[in-house]
């Protein structure tokens, strides 16, 4: 039903940077929503601060604002655009909160903007604990009883009413410090006491404990006419107690019978009806556990509820992205249409194109999601899982049995475990010491079963339903058979049907993986591909969305058209974020634009690339050698000759895809663009050195070490400090700047462990300005869209650096040198497609300042003349491709795909009105800033170094540097409040660089607090300072006290030099992270932030991307 009142122009709020708990799923949802709204003729105004998203592409929405997501910014956009509707339910919690704040501030009323979809009142009812409980009581839906108390006596009274066990949750403490589960009065006395004192407001919540209960989620939708449907239900393998984002999740539920299932379904529908949701919604419920688990819990009242309602998310969520991918039902697309007032039966079903959106998907397969945690990056972090989500991403796998879906998901994780056979060496003697939920619990469970425990025993110890642990037992049984029996076709088929990868069968049956593959083919045991069609085969579907299984009928029969395979980037983890999904999606689109069918392979359910209408054929499969080769062979057809085998594109899916290039090469499968040998040459240090020295391209001195002795030798030749890092690893994992030989030995071992080919690079660490370029190359010519200058000096990982386009303080000669080196590197390596090169320019001062303040040579008198060194070459797409493509309007991926397919760069660029060389500078400044999720990761140190730590990025764009950087800092929550207090604790090595910062701070009216050494320096400069105690046990207020009590609003804490300062500063950095105040660990960033205050005062602009570009 469309009427004259229908919105014509709608503001869509994006979710901002990727952080833990808010990842790529909102780019997927937002992109789908924008497309869906535009289908209805609506003009879409989009705001998002995250440049790495597809949704901020110029052709996804009509008017794109890459601006900070704050109320003042949104008000200015609303004032400028005058939309008649706003959609805040597709941008995660960020979008939802902003919509509510705009409403509360009266801004929506002022500008007559209608909230589309779920009304604000419904959102508030869902989000406010008391309102929600009141509604649930009206609806007769049970919620776990709870009470807020301030004394131990009240806690005891509350627990008596609620019934033990109870959970004690201190109010306003992060990470649940001081809380716990009490099963009796004595325990409660102790826990309540510590909880009350841990709480900043002296209050704890006493809540009925549902630990061990099943956790079940329903994804539901409701339209404005009151029609309600469920898209999918999901059961967590981990029972209540682990955040659902950190749980292994199965869809549909496996251990609920129809009455259980329908009971929870009906409850979920009642709840969204009661809330008045118009769009998508997620309902989390706790269900009474099965007998084995129940027996281990305190008695459950059998006259009490079978289930409790835990939480409702009145918006699309991570779970709805998962549900969309698990079922094929496009939740965000439909939610956007509901927001415009359409009813479910008026919305066409995009999958069948015959029926409507008013139906419930039927699955004829099992889906398993496993979270991807960042503890490979943060070995010192607290790895236990609880109520605070810690995963950065997730993988999903689909198959016709649980065991095989689970094993495929494990293969997709890329967490160094490889398969379920992995065991921690520490378990060698007596098995896993505990089965506590952490990132390795799945392996602990199966190892315990492998060592003789029964499935039921493991279930009783963990609360995991026996249905799941018995599946693990079946996997272990198969391992035993593979170890003991001859490998026959029957055994092979059974193993494959249980999801055993070739490599695992090879290990167990004492063969090589390639031999297993050959045997399989000889025996005719190859996977078939089935379609995800929302309807379990009942209707013909037009979605070419496939998963592999070992059965009879293959539905993915190639149609003979020319095609190419895009290898995606797998789960989002630190070092490999949404940027690579952006590139994969654009690669698919570029192929389509060239009339070639795009075949996408990926395992990440959060992404746009795994939306079924992004590519021509989507394979939701692990990105490992076996599965990629199987898919490519399937795409070639049953009796394919070489000419029918589709070529693969490995340049866009980050390290995941690039790592597969060598295997594809060995298997004789064609790769488009740079040959696998080029990739090898760029990453193999020996080969790369040979090429650079032959072509006269300067690199920092260094070498490749295979053992500690070699590393020491190299270091003493080139001199300390040196940079130590494993070869073939993305995101600077296990990379360190090392000052002396004892540190070298320590970090060499770490680097060695992380190195897939057991070699470690040792390079002279050159301090200087770091510069980065992305380029397209056809083997002869290069096109460089722009040069990006890092704000932090070399040594901070490029992914954690702020970068500014165009470079602000390079000389023309330096620019010429960079362009020249880029062309020569491309030609020397024979790069066809994309490459990213990082340079360091030494001399002329490490910190050059920006915007005319400082400038080249400002504090570099007496230093040697500037020199440009190549520090890294990656012959593939980089993290900065979306950023640079957007702000220069050079479609890098499109150009790369054309070149990879054989076009000359001159022709490819010419078609787009471009030409090789360095593209002309745009009349704008764009700053990319990293965003961290440190408050969510207890125990992780936040200082910036060569190892990447950020989870996402934002962009600030404006006419001048200060405004752009100010916006980047606001968007990344690193902006400073003028005239507030700031804590300085600067390492000795940095003190020489600190005076400028101190002067700036003082001139800007900051109150300065400092630890003793730094305070002495500040006083020596003639400024006022309050000295604070660094040691926690000292007398008087400590650094941590003044952070926690809000005395200081920002911290500068640098850590160069020895490890002792690193340890001293740890508490400072952690408490700053937990208080969510800016903490600068590089003086460069801090100076930049202070300088940016000038930008903020001079009022930044609010413009669309196009307006900046066309200025």
């Amino acid at each position, binding site marked *: 039903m469309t009427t004259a009142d229908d919105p014509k122009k709608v503001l869509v709020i994006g979710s901002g940077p990727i952080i833990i708990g808010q990842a790529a799923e909102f780019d997927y949802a937002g992109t789908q929503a924008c497309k869906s709204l535009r289908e209805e003729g609506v003009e879409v105004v989009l705001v998002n601060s995250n440049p790495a998203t597809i949704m901020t592409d110029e052709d996804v929405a009509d008017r794109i604002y890459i601006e900070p997501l704050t109320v003042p910014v949104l008000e200015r956009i609303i004032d400028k655009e005058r939309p008649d509707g706003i959609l805040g339910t597709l941008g995660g919690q960020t979008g939802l909160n902003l919509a509510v704040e705009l409403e509360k501030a009266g801004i929506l009323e002022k500008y007559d903007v209608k909230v589309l979809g779920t009304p604000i009142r419904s959102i508030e009812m869902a989000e406010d604990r008391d309102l929600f409980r009141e509604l649930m009581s009206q609806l007769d839906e049970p919620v776990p009883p709870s009470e807020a108390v301030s004394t131990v006596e009240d806690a005891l009274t509350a627990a008596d009413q609620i019934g033990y066990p109870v959970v004690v949750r201190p109010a306003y403490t992060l990470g649940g410090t001081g809380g716990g589960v009490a099963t009796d009065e004595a325990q409660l006395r102790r826990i309540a006491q510590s909880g009350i004192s841990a709480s900043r407001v002296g209050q704890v919540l006493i809540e009925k404990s549902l630990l061990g209960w099943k956790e079940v989620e329903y994804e539901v939708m409701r339209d404005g006419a009151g*029609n309600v449907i469920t898209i999918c239900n999901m059961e967590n393998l981990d029972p209540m107690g682990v955040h659902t984002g950190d749980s292994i999740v199965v869809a549909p539920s496996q251990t609920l019978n129809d009455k259980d299932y329908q009971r929870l379904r009906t409850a979920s529908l009642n709840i969204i009806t009661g809330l008045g949701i118009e769009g998508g919604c997620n309902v989390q419920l706790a269900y009474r556990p099965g007998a084995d688990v129940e027996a281990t819990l305190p008695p459950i009242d059998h006259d009490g509820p*079978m289930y409790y309602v835990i939480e409702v998310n009145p918006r699309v969520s991570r779970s709805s992205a998962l549900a969309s991918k698990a079922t094929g039902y496009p939740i965000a697309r439909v939610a956007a249409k509901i927001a415009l007032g359409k009813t479910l039966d008026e919305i066409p079903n995009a999958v069948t194109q015959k*029926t409507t959106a*008013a*139906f419930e998907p039927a699955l004829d397969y099992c889906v398993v999601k496993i979270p991807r945690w960042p503890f490979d990056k943060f070995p010192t972090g607290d790895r236990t899982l609880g109520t605070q989500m810690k995963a950065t991403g997730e993988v999903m796998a689909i198959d*016709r049995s649980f065991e095989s879906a689970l094993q495929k998901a494990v293969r997709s994780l890329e967490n160094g475990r490889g398969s379920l056979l992995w065991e921690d060496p520490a378990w060698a003697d007596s098995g896993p010491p505990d089965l506590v939920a952490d990132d390795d619990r799945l392996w602990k469970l199966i190892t315990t079963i492998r060592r003789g425990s029964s499935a039921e025993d493991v279930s009783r110890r963990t609360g995991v339903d026996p249905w799941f642990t018995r599946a693990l037992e079946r996997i272990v049984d198969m391992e035993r058979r593979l170890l003991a029996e001859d490998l026959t076709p029957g055994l092979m088929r059974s193993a494959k049907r249980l999801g055993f990868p070739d490599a695992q069968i090879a290990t167990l049956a004492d063969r090589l993986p390639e031999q297993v593959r050959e045997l399989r083919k000889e025996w005719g045991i190859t996977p078939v591909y089935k379609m995800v069609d929302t309807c*379990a085969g*009942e209707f013909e579907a037009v979605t070419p969305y496939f998963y592999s299984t070992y059965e009879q009928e293959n539905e993915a029969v190639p149609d003979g058209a020319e095609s190419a395979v895009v290898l995606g980037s797998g789960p989002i983890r630190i070092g490999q974020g949404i940027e690579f999904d952006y590139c994969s999606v654009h690669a698919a689109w570029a192929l389509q634009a060239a009339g070639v069918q795009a075949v996408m392979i990926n395992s990440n359910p959060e992404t746009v690339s795994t939306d079924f209408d992004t590519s021509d054929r989507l394979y939701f499969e692990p990105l490992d050698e076996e599965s990629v080769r199987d898919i490519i062979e399937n795409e070639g057809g049953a009796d394919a000759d070489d000419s029918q085998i589709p070529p693969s594109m490995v340049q866009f899916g980050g390290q995941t895809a690039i790592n597969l290039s060598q295997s594809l090469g060995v298997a004789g499968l064609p790769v488009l663009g740079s040959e696998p040998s080029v990739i090898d040459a760029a990453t193999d240090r020996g080969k790369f050195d040979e090429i650079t020295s032959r072509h006269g391209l300067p690199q920092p001195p260094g070498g490749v070490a295979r053992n500690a002795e070699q590393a020491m030798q190299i270091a003493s030749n080139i001199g300390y400090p040196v940079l130590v890092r494993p070869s073939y690893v993305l995101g600077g994992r296990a990379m360190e700047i090392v000052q002396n030989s004892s540190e070298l030995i320590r970090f060499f071992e770490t680097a060695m462990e992380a190195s897939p080919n057991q070699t470690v690079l040792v390079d002279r660490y050159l301090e200087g300005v770091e510069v980065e370029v992305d380029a397209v190359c056809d083997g002869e010519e290069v096109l460089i869209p722009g040069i990006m200058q890092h704000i932090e000096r070399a040594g901070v990982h490029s992914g954690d650096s702020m970068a500014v386009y165009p470079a602000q303080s390079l000389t023309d000669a330096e620019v010429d040198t960079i362009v020249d080196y880029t062309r020569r590197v491309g030609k020397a390596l024979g790069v066809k497609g994309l490459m990213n090169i990082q340079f360091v320019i030494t001399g002329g001062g490490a910190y050059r300042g920006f915007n005319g303040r400082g400038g080249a040579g400002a504090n570099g008198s007496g230093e040697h003349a500037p020199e440009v060194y190549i520090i890294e070459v990656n012959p593939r797409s980089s993290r900065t491709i979306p950023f640079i493509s957007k702000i220069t309007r050079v479609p890098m991926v499109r150009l790369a795909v054309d070149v990879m397919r054989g076009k000359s760069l001159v022709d490819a660029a010419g078609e787009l009105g471009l030409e090789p060389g360095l593209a002309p500078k745009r009349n704008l400044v764009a700053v990319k800033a990293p965003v961290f999720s440190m408050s969510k990761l207890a125990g992780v140190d936040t200082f910036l170094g060569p190892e990447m730590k950020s989870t996402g990025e934002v962009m600030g764009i404006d006419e001048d540097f200060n405004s752009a950087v100010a916006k980047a800092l606001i968007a990344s929550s690193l902006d400073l409040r003028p005239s507030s207090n700031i804590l300085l604790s600067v390492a000795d090595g940095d003190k020489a660089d600190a005076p400028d910062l101190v002067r700036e701070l003082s001139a800007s009216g900051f109150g300065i607090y400092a630890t003793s050494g730094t305070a002495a320096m500040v006083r020596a400069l003639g400024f006022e300072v309050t000295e604070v105690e660094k040691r926690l046990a000292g007398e008087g207020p400590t650094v941590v006290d003044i952070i926690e009590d809000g005395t200081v609003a920002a911290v500068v804490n640098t850590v160069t030099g020895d490890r002792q300062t690193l340890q001293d500063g740890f508490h400072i950095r952690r408490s700053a992270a937990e208080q969510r105040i800016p903490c600068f660990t590089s003086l460069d960033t801090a100076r930049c932030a202070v300088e940016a205050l000038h930008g903020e005062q001079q009022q930044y602009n609010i413009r669309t991307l196009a307006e900046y570009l066309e200025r």
Partner: protein
Amino acid sequence: MTDDRGPVRLVLEDGSSYEGTRLGAEGETTGEVVFNTSMTGYQEMLTDPSYGGQILMPTYPLIGNYGVNAADVESRRIQVRGFIVREDCERPSHSLSEGTIHDYLVENGVVGISGIDTRAITRKLRSSGVMMGIITPRETADALEALKAAPRYGEFDVVHDVSTRETYQWEGDAGERSRAFGDLKGRAWRSREHWSAAEDGLAGLESVDASAGSVSANGTTKRSDSALRIVVNDYGVKLNILRSLRARGCEVTVVSDDASAEEMLALEPDGVLLSPGPGDPIFLAAAVESAKRLIGSVPLMGICLGHQVVARALGADTFKLHFGHRGGNQPVKDLETGRVYITAQNHGYAVESDGLPDELEVSHVNLNDGTVEGLRHKSLPVMTIQYHSEASPGPHDSEYLFDRFVDMVRESGALVPSPAGSSSE
């Protein structure tokens, strides 16, 4: 744990052959192969009499996860002729579970097959239409011969095999209301006790001869003042229909499929419900005749086969669907309210919408294929639905139709004349 289950084969009438492992009883079975897309509720489906004469194949691949129990049966025994699954669970997990699907089929003497590419067969049935199949240990050629010799579904009446032979009053509990929070386990045991005491093993875990007189046949006594008396004409009724009526305070009397209109009216019903059941309504000439005499004499509700019987009684036609509607996700629009409901369905035949008699109007349509899902008489208290408002398995969204029926019965109570001399007061 399980007996040694050897290889068996499923052969379809088009000659296609699928190898699998025996599931359930040894032996051979033939029937019309149909698929159901519900992801839960296999036990309810197995015991649904509407599957009489058919071999059931759930499209969901993992069957038996939560075992079988006394609470999840919809009739006295397993009703399907055979069962085809991708994978059966040998170690189920659920508080109520009393055994595996395999043992359950063995106890009921039902033959099945496991390890089958059920999606491939679903796709075949989707394009070629439903077809006959045989599950057998024989070789394919042999099996095809046997299949050809077997009676074809649709050529014989199945209703009489699944209906009750005795009139009985259903005094079971109200079952699980969708909003109830009660302890399901407690409920299950209570209902089991009820059955074993009052109905002599109706629970269905033991195979019980359907014709054994297992219920009291005293339908005309004990009429309370306020309760509505509903007579259910059993063409293959599911227990949840009886429970749903009980939950609304009705006295429920069940009569056999061949009960005449007069026999039913003699029970002085406030309303009559014509139940679901298996097969082609074309075989139910007597029931159609009886329905003709009920229409106008008593408020009437027809569900599924009962809906088709009413439609035929009023002169509408029925036809066989290509592959039927079987699942728990079929969208139906209630034309009166404009609301869309997700419904549980299980039918292979439907009412022709063209040439519908004037006095009937379509009340519900299927959003997938536009077929008739419900009818209403323009002047008389007659309502019918093609789908299963009783759910079990399936969504509870359509429970409101029982309310609508009960309201209709109440409202028309005064209007409908009792048959002559029926007043016992």
